[in-house]
């Protein structure tokens, strides 16, 4: 868990000096300067307004002498983040097979690659996976998915370039149902939430899936790029308004971005994170662990 993430971070810092500073800071009395530095750390992790709220709370607790040392405040803040993130939330196969998962998100966030990763996740459990190539717009989107489907051992249903994505989704549902697949994963083209017609197209895809397979889509996952800043909140709100989003997958967490925006999303939009993407390969997918994540917010923080 988070191994790659930590490896990446190690590359970029002088571990020895950090370790030294950490040892020296253990049990040190808390002061305003330390709180300021923690605020900066949380802000630069893209926690946004949640950072302000948490630091304010910490300042109050400090004034009331509920927390006294640098250790106390770290424990306090980690718990704050964990509480905001809520319980672990896993992706389960639901309903009568096939379970249908629809993948949505803005352009380039990592949807297609994440489909490949999820497909691998399920084929490794011996499940039969069908993928619908619902992106008929972007150049070579279906070709990209074909390569992935072949690599991970899933069946791909695709339409012609420019075809109606809802029609492709329906065909994929048809195939998944008749071939008794366990899972159907449906890719969609990237879209910015400001494009009203494309958001409606998404609702249509979702509805069409439900027409062929009762209860589908069982999950709608929003793929978020970990480098995204406060716009992430808008993304979550608007996608949720268009389709019944059930959770998030945060891709590209193997970089130096912390993905802290998901804290605000959980708080304000109520969506849990299910998986994180930590690389470009099919097995670079890990279940989301709120505890680990809370800890990672302070990685690289100099006490």
């Amino acid at each position: 868990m988070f191994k790659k993430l930590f490896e990446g971070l190690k590359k970029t810092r002088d571990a020895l000096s950090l370790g030294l500073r950490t040892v020296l800071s253990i049990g040190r009395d808390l002061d305003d300067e330390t709180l300021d530095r923690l605020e900066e750390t949380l802000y630069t992790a893209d926690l946004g307004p949640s950072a302000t709220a948490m630091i304010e709370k910490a300042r109050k607790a400090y004034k009331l002498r509920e927390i006294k040392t640098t250790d106390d405040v770290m424990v306090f803040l980690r718990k704050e983040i964990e509480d905001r993130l809520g319980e672990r939330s896993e992706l389960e196969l639901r309903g009568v097979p096939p379970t249908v998962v629809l993948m949505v998100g803005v352009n380039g966030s990592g949807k297609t690659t994440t489909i490949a990763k999820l497909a691998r996740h399920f084929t490794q459990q011996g499940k039969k996976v069908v993928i619908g190539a619902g992106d008929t717009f972007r150049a070579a989107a279906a070709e990209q998915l074909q390569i992935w489907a072949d690599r991970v051992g899933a069946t791909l249903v695709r339409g012609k370039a420019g075809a109606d994505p809802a029609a492709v989704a329906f065909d994929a549902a048809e195939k998944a149902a008749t071939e008794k697949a366990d899972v159907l994963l449906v890719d969609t083209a990237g879209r910015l939430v400001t494009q009203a017609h494309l958001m409606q197209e998404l609702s249509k895809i979702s509805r069409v899936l439900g027409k062929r397979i009762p209860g589908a889509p069982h999950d709608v996952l929003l793929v978020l790029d970990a480098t995204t800043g406060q716009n992430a909140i808008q993304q979550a709100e608007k996608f949720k308004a268009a389709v019944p989003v059930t959770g998030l997958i945060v891709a590209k967490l193997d970089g130096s971005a912390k993905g802290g925006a998901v804290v605000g999303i959980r708080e304000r939009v109520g969506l849990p994170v299910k998986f994180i993407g930590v690389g470009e390969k099919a097995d670079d997918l890990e279940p989301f662990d709120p505890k680990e994540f809370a800890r990672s917010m302070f990685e690289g923080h100099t006490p």
Partner: protein
Amino acid sequence: MFESINQNLQKVFARFQRGGKLTDGNIQDGLREIRQALLDADVHFKVAKDLIDEVTNRAVGEKVIESVTPAQQIIKIFHDVLTAAMASDKPLVIGQHGPTVIMLAGLQGSGKTTTAGKLANLLKKRGRQPLLVAADLQRPAAIEQLKVLGQQLGIPVLAKTGVTPPDLCAEAIPFARANGHDVVILDTAGRLHIDEPLMQEVAAVKARAKPHHVFFVCDAMTGQDAVNSARAFHERLALDGVILTKLDGDTRGGAAISIRHVTGAPVRFVGLGEKLDQLEEFHADRMASRVLGMGDVVSLVERAQSVVDEKQAEEAVTKLLTDEFTFEDFLFQLRSMKKLGPLKDVLAMLPGGLGAQLQNAPIDEKQLDRVEAVICSMTREERLRPDVLDVDRRRRVARGSGNSLDQVNAVVKQFAGMRQMMKQLKSQSGLMGKMAARFMPGMSGAKQHKAQVIEEMRKKGDLLRAKRKMERDRKKQNRRRR
């Protein structure tokens, strides 16, 4: 984009306006809010602090000026600081001789391949002979993606497998020369700035191909990490420009300010959509204006001009001014709005805080299509005289448009609300007239005068005369045109 920072800053400045002179106290107050607004817009924590320090220094130095309001003073200073923070002192010159080599680099999914196509398209339109080089040998179907774009544009793509990207890029230059290309655009694979082997590879591409320009392609939605990735790419590649993609969304785009701050590389182009002609030059002053809620009138006018039928637009303005707002106008506005782009973008560009006012209006973007369907199911009489819409007619409209009666009722109510709002706006010192004259295309000179005449007449309460005069004018003009 930027609508939020707009609103926040407007709130702050409204307070300044009430405040009187600049004092240390109110400067601090206001600046704290500005800092928060910058942070909400994803400007990096430290960069925001630097900018605030700069403004504080200048503001304190200038607080003796008493001829302007404190708000104007601060806005002016902040506008200058933000513009300077993003502007470039040298224009981008893409060389005319020999193949000019342009290299694109950046994180995964930022938009490099699409931007390569867009740049090639732009340069081709300027009479150049570009060659696209598919140097991403990593991502599945990356080569195919660039080939498809090349095909759509009629621009050749150099692609090869079984080579390394640096070798391929080095080879591309003599190939271009031999085949009469005067521009070479290198599309490299996306990579993380902390991935040492891949950063070495991209540095090798640069060393071998010796590009004249290295552009960092960056997603406008990027948050605080923008400074880290930009700095790392800059260290390896000595960037000389940035291309900010996906600005057609509703991101506030503070990364633009951060990146410039840490690399010194100016934003050169912005991506405004997925299509290959949606690349535009970057304007620092416009961006700064938007950040400050001054309204990006220039951009709005340009976009409006390209999508709105001039005569219809003029009529729409006239209608607005003569209190004849009907469902037909509503429909026209809806359609122009849709063409202009995201409603929120458009609203955010309006000057003088209007954007913020209108944003609270009962216009829900998702519903535009539904509203359109409802209006289309009305008869012409109903569209012109909404009062006739009784329950029976509304039922029919509901059936015709595939909506429920409630939904139709909601649309009619929404319309009534808009009508009311228009009235209110107009009573605010003819602001709408002034705005319309600037905002609507073709409203210069004589037409602008006409708008003024109508505005004057409206004030006198002589709506009917104004309308008749418009009719006469239009008929006269039509006759002349024929």
